């Protein structure tokens, strides 16, 4: 089955996910190299390109981290090819050191950075705005506003990049990346560029000289000229649009997915003839003449964007400069409290803000009596659904053991957390049993633990642990581990090795024997890396409960330096495991002690695997055979031997 992404036919229409549309745009631009680090909501861009790598003659990789991924993509550009680099919002911060230097050195083949942000943090631990990198590092920023634009702007971004000889940022958001819509395909190019790094020319020649950021002032000047050039191009960009009446009462200025919310709000309020929408596809640098032309249409302007007032600030600064000629405008937005500066927007929030400005309060989304009835009838019947470790998840077993070992140790030890599925351990009901106490960026658990592990001289007696996933280990743990070893920090690193980048959908990483394109690859072994650093490593299976718990306690007793424990058990959702149950699990009701002294529902009250339910009538535990993944761990924790497991046929 050939992926529709490399369908040759021009003009066909497909339902594409925003991320797939971005991939198609890159293919239509003739991209040769695509790299990224997985992160929701960006992962499907590289994933879908992996699937067409062979037919499309692409080089695609899941890099060890975002910075490395951008460096690999930059090399492609230096060799004259077009390259794409993807990551989620946090990733830009990881890559930013290189990005800063790259923006100053400039590029050759078209290179774009697609970063997918997550307003409202639907699947992130922050909702940071990475748009601010564009003005900070002085590179252009594009923001597609629908699925067709996701494709078309990606394609165009490569042209812009080559035109100004610098990297271009393209920003998507969860609702675009993970949404889907109709996309009409353009043409795929027939030929690919030859890779060659020309470096024997005059030092400062952009096409044949050295690639670096010095002489700094000269290069900086050059970079700002590129931005000036981008600004001129944006003045005529088809992605900056106005729709609405000639003299709107209110002008909405927006970008990204909020454009669709604006259109919906205008339609819901029925004010098509009184409200205009100025949509920016290119949001930095803003084209001043284009802006001025549209600001002049009206006096009231509502700025519609998610999270921070990025566009609002820039529009106001430009408007202040234009005020002597254009007159003073009234701006509504985040500073006036018409929109929050946190969380994501939706059509209802735009309806409410616009209605307030226009004095319209007749719009009814949900009839009041219906809403009242729905609240009265349903609010008590909708128990909250907390996120939790999946049935069969090795992390539940690992945290169970870490918790028990720390309780037994009794010195108030704690775990510094990290980013991955195991981040959920910071929320007790999720199955972390309350052991994780800090949670920051990739690899930071190890860095923080390395700090805590040095505070014995100040009287700190608590044992310090940290956890990281296998993918995270390669991403950012290694330097922190080296630091801790060199400084003799007292800490235990537990690598929760589940055999892939599970959180984001099982992407490959350097520890696996297959790369992103499905080719055989040398696996870089975590244990051997640790040993080379000078750390003794033990490897256990978290499903061997007692042996592993004893190991953790022994490591806790051993108070010398850095200790590493690898808990190895493949993710329950992994392709190799998902299909097959290892055990058939059932409850022997005659043995189940239920709520009685001696058990008190350990499996459902404390262990809480979603595969086990509590039958309130019978007062017995019950396996939900649809949910149970058959890992069999619950049978090891049942104090009454009532959970029976048999090797599945």
């Amino acid at each position, binding site marked *: 089955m050939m992926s529709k992404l490399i369908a040759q036919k021009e003009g066909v229409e497909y339902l594409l996910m925003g991320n797939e549309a971005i991939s198609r745009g890159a293919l239509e631009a003739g991209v040769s190299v695509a790299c990224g680090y997985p992160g929701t909501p960006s992962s499907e861009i590289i994933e879908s390109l992996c699937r067409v790598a062979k037919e499309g003659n692409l080089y695609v990789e899941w890099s060890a981290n975002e910075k490395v991924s951008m460096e690999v993509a930059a090399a492609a550009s230096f060799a004259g090819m077009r390259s794409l680099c993807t990551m989620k919002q946090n990733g830009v911060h990881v890559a930013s050191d290189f990005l800063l230097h790259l923006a100053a050195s400039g590029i050759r083949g078209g290179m774009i950075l697609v970063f997918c942000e997550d307003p409202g943090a639907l699947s992130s631990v922050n909702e940071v705005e990475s748009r601010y990198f564009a003005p900070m590092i002085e590179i252009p920023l594009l923001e597609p506003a629908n699925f067709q634009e996701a494709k078309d702007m990606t394609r165009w971004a490569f042209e812009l990049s080559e035109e100004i000889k610098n990297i271009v940022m393209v920003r998507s958001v969860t609702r675009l990346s993970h949404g889907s819509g109709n996309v009409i395909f353009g043409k795929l190019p027939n030929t690919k560029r030859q890779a060659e790094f020309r470096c024997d020319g005059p030092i400062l020649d952009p096409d044949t000289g050295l690639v670096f950021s010095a002489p700094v002032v000269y290069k900086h000047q050059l970079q700002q000229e590129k931005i000036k050039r981008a600004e001129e191009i944006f003045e005529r960009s088809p992605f900056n649009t106005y729709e609405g009446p000639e003299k709107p009462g209110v002008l909405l200025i927006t970008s990204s997915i909020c454009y669709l919310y604006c259109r919906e709000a205008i339609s819901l309020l029925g004010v098509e003839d009184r409200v205009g929408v100025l949509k920016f596809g290119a949001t930095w640098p803003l084209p001043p003449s284009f802006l001025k032309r549209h600001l002049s249409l009206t006096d009231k302007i509502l700025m519609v964007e998610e999270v921070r007032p990025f566009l609002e600030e820039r529009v106001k600064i430009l408007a202040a400069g234009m005020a002597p000629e254009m007159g003073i405008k009234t701006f509504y937005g985040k500073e006036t409290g018409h929109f929050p500066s946190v969380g994501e927007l939706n059509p209802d929030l735009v309806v409410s803000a616009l209605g307030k400005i226009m004095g319209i309060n007749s719009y009814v989304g949900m009839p009041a009596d219906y809403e009242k009835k729905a609240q009265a009838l349903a609010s008590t019947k909708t128990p909250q659904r907390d996120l939790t470790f999946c049935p069969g998840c090795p992390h539940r077993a690992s945290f169970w053991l870490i*918790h*028990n070992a720390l*309780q*037994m*140790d*009794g010195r108030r030890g704690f775990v510094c957390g990290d980013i991955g599925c195991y981040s959920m351990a910071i929320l007790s009901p999720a199955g972390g*049993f309350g052991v994780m106490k800090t949670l920051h960026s990739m690899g930071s658990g190890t860095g923080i633990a390395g700090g805590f592990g040095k505070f014995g001289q100040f009287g700190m007696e608590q044992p310090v642990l940290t956890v990281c996933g296998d993918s995270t280990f390669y991403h950012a743990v290694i330097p922190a581990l080296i630091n801790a070893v060199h400084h003799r920090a007292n800490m235990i690193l537990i690598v929760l090795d589940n055999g892939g980048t599970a959180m984001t959908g099982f992407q490959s990483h350097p520890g696996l024997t297959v790369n992103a394109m499905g080719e055989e690859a040398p696996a870089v072994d975590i244990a051997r890396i640790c040993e080379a650093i000078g750390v003794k490593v033990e490897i256990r299976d978290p499903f061997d409960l007692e042996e592993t718990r004893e190991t953790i*306690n022994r490591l806790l007793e051993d108070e010398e330096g850095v200790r590493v424990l690898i808990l190895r058990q493949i993710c329950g959702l992994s392709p190799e495991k998902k299909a097959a149950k290892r055990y058939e699990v059932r409850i022997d009701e005659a043995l189940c002690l239920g*709520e*009685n*002294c*001696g*058990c*008190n529902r*350990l499996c459902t009250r*404390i262990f809480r695997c979603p595969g086990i339910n509590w039958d309130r009538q019978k007062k017995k535990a019950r396996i939900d055979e649809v949910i149970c993944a058959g890992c069999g761990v619950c049978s090891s*924790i049942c*104090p009454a031997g009532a959970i029976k497991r048999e090797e599945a046929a």
Partner: protein
Amino acid sequence: MEDGGMGQRELQREVIDTHLCTGCGACVGLCPYQTSYHDRIILLHPCDIKVGRCYMFCPRTPTNLETMRKSLCEEKDLTPEIGAVKGFYLTRATDEQIRKDAQHGGSVTTLMTLALREGIIDTAIIAEGKENFLHRGVAVNDPAEVKKRGKSKFIVSPTVAEFNRAAKGEAKKIGVVATPCQVLALAKMRLKPVPVDEGNIDKLKLVIGLFCGWALSWRGFMELLRKKTGLDAVVGMDIPPRRHTLEVYTKDGTIEFSMEEVNSCIREACHYCFDTTAEFADISVGSARLPGRWEETRIWNQVIVRTQRGDDLVQLARAGGLLEFREAPGEALDELKKSAMEKKRTALKSIAARSGSSPDLLYLDRFDPVVRMLQG
């Protein structure tokens, strides 16, 4: 107990958090919520059962000692100082090898071995040393196995946990060698305060109690030992009477620790203990305190026989020539009673200091006749 609960939460509040926990293991092995680690009892996860066996069996939750004395002993044998006394002897094993492997006279080893051999019990629960002075209770069926484990332990072992485990299994008749706190826990179980697993406690056929003044906290003692010697070098320990030292025997000779040093590592719970002679055992055994040379005294035991089944066993050992008996000097019993009373008095003071009010005796009842007698 404001809300009338007698479960894990109260156990934590009244026993664990107040450092009354003796580490006996009575609350361990019954459910998945408590376990023991080193010499401590660990609450692994919260349990919200209102009346739990953990609380009911704990020797440091409120106990009506008077009811217990009357139900488990013959009233005529009762003494306020050391509980029931059916007989008082000085004994030692006639088997020299047993004496050599034992701490003192080898009487406990002899009696336990005999009970196993005669089928009075099929399983003996005794403490066994592990690495680093840690101990655990083990269940053994072979008399030879008992002999290997005859030395005194200075760190608590969760012996009652092993009883709980064994009672759930194949064993039908169980004997336990236990410290006074462990004996009290077993006695509480025998009164069956909760209607669960009644058949299990009925398997308890013999309790041999050990005299005990205190136990050491493992972590504290390890630190103390490490200051003077390598842990690997230690081969044994003892406390000779009236010398106020702890002797640690190492490959390179004896190291002495002053009692001040040792006191700092005594388990806090031991300061609140009201019982040095294991008053609710069938037989209680300790080292002899005789005038004369310690080297001669130390190979004898003082034995208090408390119950009929205890007496039967001791007489069986005498008849079989397994135990050698020696006339106990008249003052020996008085001295034992005096020192037991002294310990009870100190315990009451420590308990009042911990509770912050002298009528509040925590797990003890201020209307208990022995308590009233001491408080005069």
